[in-house]
């Protein structure tokens, strides 16, 4: 068990509040009696935690790229990378060396500071979110009392480097890509956060470990089942909104190569492009990890008799399963159009998640403190009813659409482009 390792013990000290974490980081205030109390000890522990996080994430990222190419390859009836090393396992390292040795270009027209900072700042928001990801019961860098909110707040800052990259490049495709990206990310943030509010409502906590405790066989906290069973609609919305949020296919419109070259990172080459690539896989992994924590029970085993298997194995398996789902979506679905994308967020996902939230709130009040089976039954009835309603509405909408001539509104990209032309003139 990893519990017994000294590494796990050094990671075991948890702090409850952001201020505790922050001041603990600087002041040496002992977060717990018994934990090392000197300032140097805290700083060393923090650096250790950060190093472990970055290392785990880095390795995960390297092999996520390999896995993605393999999986997409299989789906497209190809072999994927298989030349460098056994099964192409050394391919990520070969790619890394290639990235590092390429020429580092800064376009002469670019705004130097903004252009370079854009590439550098794209990574930190992707990594900081891992601070609240619980790999195991005690394997969490900072179990903040606002863990889930912290993750989404940090995630929301990811739009800034995109803006900086798009504007700093002084390239119209980069600017267009950045505006698309930001409009998309901001729009999908709303259904993403609304979809998890149902979970937070049921668990009654924002702390990651608290959320995990409330949904597993280990422990007796309410409601005691995985939230995917109580919030399947929320889970689907979370998955779709997250796919858009991290700009993966079918929502990779900001970097749609057939329309606007590569979007906001058109002008980046070498390692600066590599940083964007890095951040994409970082957020894929962190979003999968948070999805696993919020909806799949984190490190909790599915049944109590499987508790012998260490929690970090469960957590890793669930995270990888979600990472696979993201790759699967990429291999399956074609890219949306810009106007479809925005309409989907505002006219489909937001209303559904609002209805889901209202029903969840009502039910949570009614079933508070009941046995898991009872809670599950009540929620199943409600979810089936909601899905039936949704299907009925969609069927009605299709009949209505079939009966009239379908006219599309002017796509948003044209409006943005027109505004840009006016601005540039």
């Amino acid at each position, binding site marked *: *068990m990893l*519990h*017994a390792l000294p590494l*796990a013990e050094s990671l*075991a000290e948890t*702090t*409850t*509040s*952001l*201020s505790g974490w*922050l*001041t*603990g980081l*600087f*002041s040496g*205030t002992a*977060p*717990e*009696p*018994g934990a090392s109390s000197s*300032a140097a000890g805290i700083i060393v522990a923090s650096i250790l935690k950060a190093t472990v996080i970055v290392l785990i994430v880095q390795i995960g990222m390297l092999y996520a790229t390999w896995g993605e190419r393999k999986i997409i390859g299989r789906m497209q009836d190809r072999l994927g990378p298989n030349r460098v090393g056994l099964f192409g396992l050394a391919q990520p390292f070969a790619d890394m060396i290639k990235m590092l040795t390429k020429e580092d270009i800064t376009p002469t027209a670019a*705004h130097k500071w*903004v252009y370079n900072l854009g590439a550098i700042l794209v990574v930190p928001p992707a990594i900081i979110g891992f601070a609240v990801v619980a790999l195991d*019961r*005690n394997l969490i860098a900072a*179990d903040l*009392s*606002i863990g889930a*909110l*912290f993750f*989404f*707040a940090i995630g*929301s*800052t990811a*739009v*800034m480097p995109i*803006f*900086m990259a798009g*504007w700093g490049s002084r390239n119209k495709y980069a*600017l267009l890509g950045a*505006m698309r990206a*930001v*409009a998309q990310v*901001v729009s999908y943030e709303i259904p993403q956060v609304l979809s998890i509010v149902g979970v937070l409502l049921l668990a009654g*906590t*924002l*702390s990651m*470990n*608290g959320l995990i*405790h409330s949904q597993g066989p*280990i*422990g*007796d*906290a309410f409601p005691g089942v995985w939230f995917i069973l109580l919030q399947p609609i929320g889970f689907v919305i979370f998955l779709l909104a997250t796919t858009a949020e991290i700009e993966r296919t079918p929502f990779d419109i900001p970097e749609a190569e057939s329309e606007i070259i590569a979007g906001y990172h058109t002008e980046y080459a070498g390692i600066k492009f590599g940083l964007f690539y890095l951040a994409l896989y970082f957020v894929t992994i962190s979003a999968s990890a948070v999805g696993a924590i919020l909806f799949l029970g984190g490190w909790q085993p599915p049944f109590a008799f499987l*508790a012998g298997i260490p929690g970090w194995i469960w957590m890793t398996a669930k995270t990888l399963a979600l990472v696979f789902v993201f790759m699967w979506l990429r291999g399956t679905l074609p890219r949306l159009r810009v106007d479809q994308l925005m309409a989907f967020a505002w006219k489909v996902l937001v209303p559904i998640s609002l209805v889901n939230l209202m029903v969840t709130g009502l039910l949570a009040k009614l079933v508070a403190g009941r046995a898991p089976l009872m809670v599950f039954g009540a929620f199943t009835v409600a979810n089936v009813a909601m899905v039936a309603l949704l299907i009925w509405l969609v069927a009605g909408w299709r009949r209505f659409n079939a009966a009239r001539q379908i006219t599309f509104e002017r796509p948003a990209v044209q409006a*943005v482009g027109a*505004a*840009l032309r006016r*601005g*540039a003139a």
Partner: protein
Amino acid sequence: MMEMLAFGLVAGVAVGGAIGVVAARNVFVSALWLVLSFIGVAGIYAILGADFLAATQVLIYVGAISVLILFAVMLTHHVMGDERSNNRQAFLAFIVSSSVVAALGVLAYRTDWPIRPADAGGSVVTAMRGDPAGSSAASAAAQTGASTALTSTVDLALNQDSNVVRLGQALMTEHLLSFEIISLVLLVALIGAIVIARD
């Protein structure tokens, strides 16, 4: 000492960012400085022990308001150009605002604030812990029970004493009316912004 260092860092970021906002010649760059200043303010909230507010500050100010501002800059501005950024009354404005800062600073220093005695000497972290007995029991469990699998309710207590819960209760009880009014204001602003920007 280290707490002061942390404060100095975030305060420097906040004020430095603010100065960048007014000093930058390009509107886009000054919006980026504004983001830095917002992040510094979030850090100040965190040091003050207002966790939820710090996260909200990042989520709303950095993730939403700054984005709106940057969008407005891109949609209206000569996208790439620099220009003379200050108007003729800049010197007068500088005198007025620096005297406001000086007056407020002197007032803040000279006033004898009724400081809450419990927090005056202790650190933020110990004050944050609402229930010392529960907290120490939980940490004892965290030490001894780390390897035993089926103990969970105790270390849950670690997360119960945050002021997120109290804030939620305050919003839903004493401040319910203002909460509802602010919701209405947001709805009206949403509709109004759409109507104004469309025509």
